[in-house]
């Protein structure tokens, strides 16, 4: 018996010595930890990266394919400025002049390479025997009403304009500014473009108040990412206030509150230092790290402080004794729970989305430091601060039965019934959980409080789609894009695409070939088809290209070798799965209807985001299994009991299933941010199980209670602590759930459900299972009593 008890004694002795050491050298310890926190913190560097590329790992095949396409043609990001004149008609002298003016200003956008607008659209026409290519409306202020009527007529017939730059009724128009970001420092380049555009828009609004203006595009998307990172970082302030209030309510002691505040600040300073040292640039998912660390770190301090104050208040210990006793009792549990949390966060590295690697690593580091500070700086501070409490007489009397105890009584009366009900409820919710569908529509990452979202919604309702899919269609030979066979097939693909219900607009080179052919034949509509011979096609193209002005060439559509062309398909707002299905359908059409060189895969940022959730889920699967195994091993070690370690998997896994089941009733759409919750919440909710099981085992083995009595004992001893930590966690994730960024807010919301479910399961299902499994083993009880040791006493 003694031999077996030894390890526990060793840890207890270790914790006790640790506490005594810290108290003895309280000043040196405090100064050392302060120096460490400041040392790390001084390396801190908060830089943000808003470029949407950060969501994709270097090896992401969709990103590689998209980059390859951009290298072939032009690499471009864009800003769409959408203008809606209040008179409901774009085609007036004043409105066209205003558009011309803003278009000219848009050319001054930093890094701009191209500006497409209604007025500078290169209209192709035949004038006698000559090809005439010119701006659709140049110097509009000099035009007569009759000329403007002709411009309107031309514009509304132009397939390259309608549903892209102009809506069908001629009431809304867009200016599309293409920028070529050097990509050296996106934290500098993107704000530069954004500031210019915002300025240009506000100047324009002052001069032309009759225009309503909305803007969207990839640069505003990046800006929205950028700004939501900063907003989410601001949530830290709210969380800090909540930490202070919660600590004060729970400990009812000002010095404890101060000490907790210092410990969490040290932890965050260290994490910020880690960000700087590792050169991590913050993104929306990783910018929530301070709130995460605050939420998780404060629990460590609260456990230690509550025990200490209880020992002083109830048991009349003096401050030093109470502190040593509290450290002795809490060292292991705090260590184990920190360890499991760190494991949970580190599993994010298994995923395929780099911002979550950063979030996992920063939080894991912060938690490690929080453990260190909670066991050093915290007791040192408490030893220094003049903590005084009133010693309470046992006024309430032993006969008063606590709420937790009565809950325990209720559970032990009907373990079979509760187990069956739990299993039915969990089973039902697990079934529902399978009804969730991945959806990573990046527009919906932002809620309606974000201008980017509302502007984009306006544009997709009134003008064109925001999502697109691109194909690079090869001809298999140099100059082969002028081969009539290629042009006919490309034309057929264009036609097929236009027939698809989700397609808003198609931009294909075959349209250019048709248009020029028509103009070469005196604008005869019968020639609105691709040319019949290769020489004709090539020479018409040469003529057309010679006629185009600066910045409006075909280099964004044709590669240098003239062997491939780019097809851009604009799509309605549809769900990720439908987007992938559409791209697959188009790829299959090419395979069935065109020769091999023309086969191509669909690429675009939209598709990259569409597949992101699936890719993340696939890659996180292994990570989650590893987390589950590792954490179960930690539990078996901590409880020194294989069977209970195995049993613990049930209350640790089921909350996630329940969480996703409720989610199916709430939103039924899951995004990339939610894939990480299994590993993450596992590390957090496992604490409940550990505490409950350890108290149960202690009652069985040390106090010789039977299973039912042991359950009631566990309720009595840890019930309140579990509710307390759950409340702190719920508060933290509730703060995060207010984020305007869905990857963060959805993740926080489902974590709220999971953490709450975990508590309910630990109070209902876990004790029932403990009673049921113990019953079967009553005969072996003597053997079992020899085995075990409980590490996690309080």
């Amino acid at each position: 018996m003694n031999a077996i008890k030894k390890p526990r004694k060793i840890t207890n002795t270790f914790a006790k010595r640790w506490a005594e050491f810290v108290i003895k050298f309280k000043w040196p310890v405090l100064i050392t930890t302060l120096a460490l926190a400041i040392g790390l913190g001084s390396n801190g560097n908060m830089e943000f990266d808003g470029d949407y590329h950060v969501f994709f790992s270097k090896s992401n095949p969709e990103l590689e394919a998209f980059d390859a396409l951009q290298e072939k043609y032009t690499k471009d990001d864009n800003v769409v400025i959408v203008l809606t004149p209040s008179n409901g008609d774009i085609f007036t002298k004043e409105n066209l002049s205003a558009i011309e003016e803003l278009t000219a200003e848009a050319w001054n956008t930093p890094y701009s390479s191209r500006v497409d607008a209604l007025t500078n659209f290169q209209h192709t026409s035949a004038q006698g025997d000559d090809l005439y290519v010119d701006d659709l409306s140049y110097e509009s202020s000099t035009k007569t009403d009759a000329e403007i009527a002709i411009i309107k007529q031309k514009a509304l017939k132009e397939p390259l304009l309608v549903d892209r730059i102009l809506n069908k009724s001629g009431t809304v128009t867009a200016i599309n500014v293409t920028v070529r970001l050097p990509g050296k420092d996106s934290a500098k380049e993107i704000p530069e473009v954004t500031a210019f555009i915002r300025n240009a828009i506000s100047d324009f609004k002052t001069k032309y108040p009759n225009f309503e203006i909305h803007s969207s595009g990839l640069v505003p998307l990046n800006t929205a990412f950028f700004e939501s990172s900063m907003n989410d970082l601001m949530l830290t302030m709210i969380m800090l206030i909540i930490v202070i209030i919660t600590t004060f309510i729970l400990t009812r002691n000002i010095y404890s509150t101060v000490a907790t505040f210092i410990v969490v600040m040290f932890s965050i300073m260290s994490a910020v230092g880690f960000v700087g040292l590792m050169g991590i640039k913050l993104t929306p998912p990783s910018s929530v790290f301070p709130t995460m660390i605050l939420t998780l770190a404060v629990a460590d301090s609260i456990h230690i402080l509550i025990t200490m104050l209880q020992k002083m208040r109830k048991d009349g210990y003096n401050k030093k004794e109470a502190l040593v006793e509290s450290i002795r009792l809490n060292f292991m549990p705090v260590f184990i729970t920190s360890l499991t949390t760190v494991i949970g966060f580190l599993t994010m590295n298994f995923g395929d989305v780099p911002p979550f690697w950063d979030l996992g690593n920063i939080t894991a580091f912060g938690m490690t430091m929080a453990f260190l500070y909670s066991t050093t700086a915290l007791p040192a501070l408490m030893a220094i601060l003049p903590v005084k409490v009133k010693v309470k007489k046992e006024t309430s009397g032993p006969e008063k039965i606590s709420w937790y105890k009565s809950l325990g009584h209720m559970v032990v009366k009907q373990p079979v019934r509760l187990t069956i009900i739990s299993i039915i409820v969990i089973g039902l919710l697990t079934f529902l959980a399978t009804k969730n569908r991945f959806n990573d529509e990046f527009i919906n990452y932002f809620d309606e409080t974000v201008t980017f979202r509302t502007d984009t919604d306006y544009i997709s309702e009134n003008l064109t789609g925001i999502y697109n899919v691109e194909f690079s269609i090869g001809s298999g030979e140099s100059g082969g894009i002028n081969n009539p066979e290629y042009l006919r097939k490309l034309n057929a693909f264009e036609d097929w695409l236009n027939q698809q219900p989700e397609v808003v607009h198609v931009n294909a080179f075959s349209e250019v070939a048709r248009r020029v052919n028509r103009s070469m034949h005196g604008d005869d509509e019968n020639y609105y088809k691709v040319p019949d011979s290769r020489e004709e096609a090539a020479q018409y193209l040469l003529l057309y290209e010679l006629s185009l002005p600066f910045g409006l060439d075909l280099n964004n559509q044709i590669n240098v070798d003239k062997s491939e062309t780019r097809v851009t398909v604009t799509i309605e707002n549809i769900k990720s799965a439908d987007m992938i299905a559409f791209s697959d359908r188009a790829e299959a059409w090419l395979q069935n209807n065109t020769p091999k060189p023309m086969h191509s895969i669909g690429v675009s940022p939209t598709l990259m985001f569409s597949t992101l959730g699936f890719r993340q889920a696939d890659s996180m699967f292994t990570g989650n299994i590893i987390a589950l195994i590792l954490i179960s091993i930690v539990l078996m070690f901590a409880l020194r009991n294989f069977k209970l370690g195995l049993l613990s998997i049930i209350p640790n896994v089921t909350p996630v299933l329940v969480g996703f089941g409720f989610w199916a009733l709430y939103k039924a759409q899951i995004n990339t941010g939610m894939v990480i919750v299994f590993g993450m919440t596992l590390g957090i909710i496992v604490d409940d199980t550990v505490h409950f099981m350890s108290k149960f085992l202690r009652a069985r083995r040390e106090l010789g209670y039977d299973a039912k009595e042991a359950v009631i004992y566990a309720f009595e001893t840890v019930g309140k602590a579990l509710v307390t930590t759950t409340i702190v966690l719920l508060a933290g994730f509730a703060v995060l759930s207010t984020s305007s960024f869905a990857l963060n807010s959805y993740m926080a919301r489902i974590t709220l459900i999971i953490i709450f479910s975990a508590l309910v399961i630990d109070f209902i299902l876990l004790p029932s299972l403990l009673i049921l499994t113990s019953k079967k083993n009553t005969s072996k009880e003597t053997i079992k009593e020899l085995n075990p040791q409980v590490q996690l006493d309080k």
Partner: protein
Amino acid sequence: MKKLILIGIALLSITAITAQSAEERGLQIANEADKADQGFKSSIVNLKMTLKNKNGQTSERLLITRTLEQSDDGDKSMIVFNSPKDVKGTSTLTFTHKIGSDDQWLFLPSIKRVKRISSNNKSGPFVGSEFAYEDLSSQEVEKYGYKFLKENGNLLIVEQDPVDPKSGYTRRLVTYNKEKAYRLEKIEFYDRKNSLLKTLTYSDYKLYKGKFWRALTMNMINHQSNKETQLKFSDYNFESELSEDDFTQVALKRAGK
């Protein structure tokens, strides 16, 4: 106080004088360069154009350029495409004008017709290259405003502002070599938002007829797209004695055959 104002006026007038002379000197350099190249009468040259994208993928075009010098107006030129095969025989005829837009025709062998090109647009890329048509056409003095910037040994740097509002550039920084008959060494092009767009470097200079410097290699780098175009000239012929008759629409049709 009076003194101060006087000094102020004096300073202003000095600035005005120097500004004036910077512009004059710029114009003077351009005129010198123009004069130095006068009298070559006509030339024929083969041209290989190599387009290179960011990844180093290349594409080639072969052309022949004929030029006829004009004394009172801009030069006339004819470009005949020899490759790629599907545009073989396609040729352009250009009459540059000192003032106003140029005239340009294109002969398309596939339909055996001459088409006039709307010359309002000459800022676009020439056959997909990094050269705009305005970079390749005859450099007439009247097409720019000038401002001398600095002297660097033999090299004179002059800022040129295009007169044409449809130009793709706000300005060009042109480096002349004073010692070598004011030949061009380098041009830097600034786009409409006034950021550096392209750099053109002239190299492999050869002196013809003891007077006319011709660069046999011209390399244009686009700094924004990281694409490049190289022009290699060969077999310069100044003895062909081309005449006005070789630069007509009839001649254009003939050249393409």
